[in-house]
């Protein structure tokens, strides 16, 4: 059943597939504000593209609305700037209809957690093989500074002059609770770490969600300073590494230990606890992932960064193909004339 589409998309690539990051920079000006955290996402994304090892015509970036929505214009691959909140739905259709593509979504906390919340949770559980990067700046920036579903309680914004009354979403926990197979978090300030996360997301077969704390220096400047500033970050953040104990602190003198189901911080220098008592990260352990997700807003423990969970489950798009293949294998390829005739036809002579 080779179609016209198969023909136009399977022409051999002319030339070698040997790119440099600059090959992914189109000839347009990036129009984010100077100092925007978005630049810190764009650059590692462009840097990992050559490593995908696929022709750039096979890569597509889809976005919704918001500052993150401009992302596709800044990538010299195929790009589609959709409507508010719907990027995951558009990307899912693209990937199901075109399993040969590497499909990426750029979205934000407003786009993805608010108007697009339904598509997000269903994207997580459906496990279409797409990579979703969420710029979380805890504010609506393109509409000039209203509170978002991830703004913290009490936050003063243009639409909450007396402070936000809502509780914020915890995006990592929401993704885990919705069944996402790959969940990770990083910070705009740490481009090297982001690059690692994007590489892992690209390699994961299934729905990948990467939340990036992205500073909006215009409407929510310093939103993440309390745990990302140089002088505090080592004590406020724990970097998750698969198979490694959860050690943190400037002197690597603290660790995370489980007390029942409750994570607690213990000192490694006081003599009561050693590295052997600490939680060891396991990306395949979904119970642990829930505990780590729940640490996000807990002031008593450091905030986890890295890959919370990476589970191997068949992707939706692979499953669709398997159903088709199985049907064709067991019943033979469908004959449309036969389908039209059906089983209850009669002949008029």
């Amino acid at each position: 059943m080779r179609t016209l589409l198969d023909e136009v998309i399977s022409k051999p690539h002319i030339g070698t597939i040997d790119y440099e990051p600059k090959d992914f920079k189109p000839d347009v000006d990036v129009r984010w504000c100077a100092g925007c955290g978005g630049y810190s996402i764009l650059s590692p994304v462009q840097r990992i593209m050559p490593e995908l090892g696929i022709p750039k015509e096979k890569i597509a970036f889809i976005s919704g609305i918001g500052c993150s929505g401009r992302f596709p214009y800044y990538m010299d691959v195929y790009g589609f700037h959709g409507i508010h909140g719907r990027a995951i739905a558009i990307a899912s259709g693209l990937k199901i209809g075109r399993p040969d593509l590497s499909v990426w979504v750029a979205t934000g906390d407003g786009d993805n957690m608010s108007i697009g919340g339904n598509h997000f949770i269903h994207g997580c559980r459906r496990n279409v093989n797409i990579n979703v990067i969420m710029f979380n700046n805890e504010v609506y920036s393109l509409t000039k500074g209203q509170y978002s579903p991830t703004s913290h309680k009490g936050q003063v914004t243009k639409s909450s002059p007396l402070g936000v009354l809502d509780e914020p979403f915890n995006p990592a926990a929401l993704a885990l609770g919705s069944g996402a197979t790959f969940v990770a978090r990083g910070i705009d300030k740490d481009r090297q770490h982001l690059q690692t996360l994007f590489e892992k997301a690209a390699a994961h077969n299934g729905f990948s969600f990467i939340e990036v704390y992205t500073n909006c220096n215009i409407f929510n400047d310093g939103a993440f300073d309390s745990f990302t500033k140089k002088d505090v970050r080592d004590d406020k953040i724990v970097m998750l590494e698969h198979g490694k104990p959860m050690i943190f602190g400037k002197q690597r003198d603290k660790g995370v230990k489980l007390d029942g189901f409750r994570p607690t911080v213990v000192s490694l220098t006081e003599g009561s606890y050693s590295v052997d008592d600490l939680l060891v990260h396991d990306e395949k352990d979904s119970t642990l992932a829930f505990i780590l997700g729940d640490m996000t807003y807990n002031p008593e423990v450091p905030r986890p960064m890295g890959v919370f969970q990476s589970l191997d489950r068949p992707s939706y798009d692979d499953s669709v193909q398997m159903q088709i293949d199985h049907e064709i294998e067991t019943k033979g390829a469908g004959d449309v004339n036969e389908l039209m005739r059906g089983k209850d036809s009669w002949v008029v002579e």
Partner: protein
Amino acid sequence: MKKEIVYLDEITVRFAGDSGDGMQLAGKQFSNASASSGVDVNTFPDFPSEIRAPEGTLYGVSAFQIKLGSDEVTTHGDVIDVLIAMNASSLKVNLPNLKDGGIIITNTGGFDQRNLKLAKYASNPLEDGTLKKYNVATIDIDSIIKEELKGSGISPKIVKKTKNFFALGITYWLFNRPMEPTVKWLNRRFKNNADVLEANIRVLNAGWNYALKNDTFKRQYTLQPAEFEKGTYRNISGNHAVALGLVVAAKRANLPLFLGSYPITPATDILQYISAYKKYGIRHLQAEDEIAGIASAIGASYGGNLAATTTSGPGLSLKIEAIGLAIMTELPLVIVDVQRAGPSTGLPTKPEQSDLFQAMYGRHGEAPLPVLAAASAADCFFMTIEAARIALKYMTPVILLTDGYIAQGTEPWRIPNLEELPVLEPKFCENPEKFAPYTRDPETLARMWAVPGMQGMEHRIGGLEKQNITGAVSHDPDNHQRMVEIRQEKIDRIVDDIPELEVMGDPDGDLLLIGWGSSYGAIKSAVDKKNSVGGKVAYVHLKHLNPLPKNLGSIIEQYDTILVPEMNMGQLRTILHSKFFKPMLGLNKVQGQPFKTSDVLTKINELLSEKEVMS
């Protein structure tokens, strides 16, 4: 006893009972058996929006109506000739529509004290003379089938459920229909359930034998086969026809098909049919909501698939923002709206033609798109292919309007061969040198289609206004004006690519009727009826609503009196007024029920007699 054989030209039969009585199934079997023996049929399932409303209630009545004819049958019949009423409520609901002298077949088991009370009958209508105008067969179906299956070891629960097949057996005798198609169907349906299979076949035969031997049934009715073009036929519903139309359109376009949809009455069947077509290589997504349905279809279209989304009125409302995106990005997309009575949840299982304005205008910004409407169940097949043809040729979303009447009703369809159907020609950009996303075909104004995977044509599109040709984001005032005009002109130019209207009935008539969508059947038969007794009435039927056929204006000019019957408050009439500045009259039915032939005929008579008085 001797039975008389009566010859008829047409007759209308209605199966009515509780929601769980299997009346839809009996009706479908009866219409298939009738159609396969050569008469023309038109069917209308009429059921409540509750799945199993409380047993015996008036609002739980489910019915299936079939009109049979030796001539062309375009409606499901105005009045009932034969009513099968399985309980008191189904009798009460349907009696007002039964012809004087009509036949009633009742199951006395459905007329006990409880049933009478639920139907709000003070006394038993089978005994108190209520039905003296009719020919009534009161049959204790429950006892007969119990007796028939005694000793078979089949569970009482299964036995009880076969009563629809007893009623079916009676009707098969009454109309001398072959039982083989139904027996064949039962064998297929219950091949893994020997008890149910045996029970149904025995009870079906018992029904036939009961009618044959019982004195109540003195006459057997025969209809001559209708004249059909040679060919292979099947009974098809509009929803089924849309599903097949999508598959065939993709095949004729040589593209993969993608359907992104969300279940909604009365459009859900289309999604269900398509979901079973995996061996044809078809992909579908039952999305989390209506918006994801269309958004995923837009994504698939961006990737080069023939993409479609199917819905009903409330769903179309939810999809509208995304339709604007498809218009802006100029991507092909087939949107099927199976209209139902609104606004809001309205009457979910009942038809209306009240989404025309929504389809035409329901978007923000200047956002024109082609709008089509199918005239009958079988026509849904051809109009779906037409929608795909226009979508691919002009790189645009297209809305196809059907409605609950033709979506669920059936009629015989001459099954075409793939080869006799139009070839659709999607045009992918082949030459990267010449590529710019908004370069256009000079004739159709369609933009070039380059999809991910095509080397050297990597580009970005989206909902922001684009610079003509290059597709770069542009806020230039003159460019926006130009792009709005181009998008409009692209749709306007389709007028040269659609068939002109043919005037039906008497073109020299004194009165012109203009119809669209599913009311075709009722209007056509009213016009034919009037003209057969010396009336002079002309009729045009619109399948293309945007753009309107080229010769509509010149047709309209030829008539002083114009009547536009539609199942809304005058939406087409308003569109025609604004386009042609010509006064027109409306016949507007918004009862959640399709037009009857008599509704239209009465209005025609009224208008013609007024004209006589005036002259």
